[in-house]
């Protein structure tokens, strides 16, 4: 039995002791499910549904000469609840209850249940370019104009897709209100949305307008202390400037970031406080929708040139662990982690450390694969022998005397020499377009692209090691090779030889 097996067995034993949630009455929940589904079907397939079908035809296909269609009526379907919010009046379907401001949802389920939401229209267009959606003009009583789009939405194509309808109503004041419907049963959603459209009218005095999702205001970080205190040592990493108190030193003994070389960590002499800077291609690539959505809860502080500054703190075991996601506008992204004692002094130190952060010119440029420097490699010794991993046709040369090893669970292939290992595994996804500046590239025969990263790291057991990784892509496939060996130039040289020997065969 391997260590991996032991660990999994231990996990399974722990999982075996997870008991059913005692408060749940399965029979009652089953009856509730039947009741809810029947109620929905009754609302949608009865007399009201016949009217709804008519509304669909009249509303969506009965285009008037000016291209604007009119709702069939302003009648509220039986069982629906009239509401007024944010300048509009409408009705919500049966079974939906108000939860948060401007939202009516199906019971307590917030994981994808039916939903009606009224909010200020986000800045994003009703139909984003390339979405294939075409907004349809519709007449809403009292409105300057109104348009809607409908689509199916769901990440798992094997499930029925959610129906999503969005209506944007422009008021005389110029405010734009968005009414959204999410209906889990996509087949029913169209009829429900048509009914919903038929109930919408403008009533400018109808309550305040809830803010759109993702635009919640980040609170200023209390106690933020900009500037570099006297005597602190300045540093910079991949375009992010920082400073740490005198006496702090680089700390590479914590295997807390990957890949090796893409982060720097500095810690106090007693180890009670530390600052880690990680360049993050993920943060650099955040779309606006994510970048503008704050962590919850989170705060922010002013940082010249940044378009993302989100800070959150978790406290445990007497340690405050503060994570700051930062991005230079149009440039690189970073994750800065500060660990300090959970005390007033510790919190003040955290804010002082964050106050030293700034960007230099390097932060403005996000490297692509083409921008990376080519990895300098070493000649492949004559004594090395070629071998195949069998993963995506990845072949390599290894020193004589190396042997195949039992790969850890989930790893497809591994080999080991004295104090050195190589593992290979097929990787999900693909290599990102944006890569850490600390990475290198290498032209591996047969691969579309290869990103190499190397540096000192630590094993899962905390032992210092040299870690080199190669991520290779061919088409939609990807494979990751990792080499570990003792820290030092010898391992770096052997890794260089290993990289030079790589090739992907077949197609």
């Amino acid at each position, binding site marked *: 039995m391997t260590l991996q097996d032991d660990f999994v067995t231990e996990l399974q034993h722990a999982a075996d002791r*997870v008991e059913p949630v005692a408060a749940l009455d399965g029979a009652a929940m089953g009856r509730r*499910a039947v009741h809810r589904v029947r109620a929905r079907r009754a609302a949608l397939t009865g007399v009201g549904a016949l009217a709804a079908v008519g509304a669909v035809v009249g509303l969506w296909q009965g285009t008037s000469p000016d291209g604007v269609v009119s709702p069939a009526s302003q009648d509220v379907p039986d069982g629906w609840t009239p509401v007024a919010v944010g300048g509009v009046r409408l009705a919500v379907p049966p079974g939906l209850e108000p939860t948060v401001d401007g939202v009516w949802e199906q019971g307590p389920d917030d994981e994808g249940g039916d939903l009606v939401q009224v909010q200020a229209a986000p800045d994003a267009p009703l139909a984003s370019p390339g979405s294939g959606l075409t907004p349809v003009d519709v007449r809403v009583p009292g409105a300057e104009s109104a348009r809607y789009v409908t689509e199916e939405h769901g990440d798992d194509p094997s499930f029925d897709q959610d129906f999503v309808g969005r209506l944007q109503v422009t008021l005389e004041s110029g405010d734009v209100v968005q009414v959204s419907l999410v209906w889990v049963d996509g087949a029913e959603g169209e009829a429900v949305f048509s009914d919903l459209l038929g109930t919408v009218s403008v009533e400018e005095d109808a309550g305040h307008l809830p803010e759109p999702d993702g635009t919640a205001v980040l609170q200023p970080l209390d106690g933020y202390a900009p500037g570099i205190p006297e005597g602190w040592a300045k540093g910079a990493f991949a375009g992010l400037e920082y400073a740490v108190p005198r006496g702090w030193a680089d700390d590479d003994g914590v295997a*807390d970031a990957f890949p090796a070389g893409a982060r720097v960590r500095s810690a106090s002499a007693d180890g009670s406080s530390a600052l880690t800077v990680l360049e993050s291609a993920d943060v650099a690539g955040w779309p606006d929708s994510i970048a503008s*959505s704050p962590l919850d809860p989170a705060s922010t502080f002013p940082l010249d040139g940044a378009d993302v500054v989100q800070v*959150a703190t*978790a406290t*445990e075991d007497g340690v405050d662990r503060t994570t700051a996601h930062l991005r230079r506008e149009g440039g690189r992204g970073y994750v800065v982690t500060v660990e300090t004692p959970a005390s007033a002094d510790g919190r003040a130190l955290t804010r002082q450390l964050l106050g030293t952060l700034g960007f230099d010119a390097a932060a403005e440029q996000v490297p692509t694969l083409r921008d990376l420097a080519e990895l300098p490699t070493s000649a492949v010794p004559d004594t090395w022998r070629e071998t195949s991993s069998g993963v995506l046709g990845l072949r390599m040369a290894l020193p004589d005397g190396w042997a195949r090893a039992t790969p850890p669970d989930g790893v497809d292939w591994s080999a080991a020499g004295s104090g050195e290992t190589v593992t290979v595994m097929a*990787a999900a996804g693909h290599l990102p377009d944006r890569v850490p500046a600390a990475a290198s590239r290498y032209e591996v025969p047969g691969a579309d692209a290869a990103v190499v990263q190397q540096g000192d790291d630590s094993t899962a057991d905390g032992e210092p090691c040299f870690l080199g990784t190669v991520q290779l892509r061919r088409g939609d496939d990807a494979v990751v090779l990792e080499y570990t060996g003792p820290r030092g130039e010898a391992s770096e040289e052997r890794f260089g030889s290993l990289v030079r020997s790589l090739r992907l065969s077949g197609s």
Partner: protein
Amino acid sequence: MTADGAVPVVAESSAEPFRVAAAGDTPADRFTAFAATSTPALSRIAYLLSGDEHRAGDLVQLALERTYRAWARVEDGDPFAYARRVIATARIDGWRRTRRDVLSDPADLRPAPVPDGTRTVVDRDRLVRALRQLPAAQRRVVVLRYLLDRSEAQTADELNISVGSVKSSGSRGLARLRELLGADGTTPAPTTTRKGTVR
């Protein structure tokens, strides 16, 4: 049952299709019997995935409703597997949560303090807390593949992902769990996000 009376989670994970034990006169009767029988097992899975009893209850209710909607076509097959799949993929399916999931930094969720030297194995509460720190994709794979002992192919099928994704997500998830729980299950390890590594 195990020695301490708990019902093993793996019990319902066999490849045999779930069969409704008590058949009633109507589809609703048969579905209600199915709900009564399967809710305990479903709730354990939901709890392992969510780490929260209230959310687990919501997930089970969601799964039951979707299963009843599909009852006509799943009753003669494997309704339990259908319901389990609803639960396992609920966070994906719940598109309104996607952005928040993306933003959730696993490092922001750390296990609660545990006394030193009082245990020699991973206890269930620490396991659940550690699971919550995994990205959703890794958590689903770890729960299905390892805790429910599904095969790689079964896990891939249930989550509608490739076997390669099961391997990579499972490997990374286990590595992360090992870090969080400590190699011997007693020592929490540093929790900064680690990307794409296999130890």
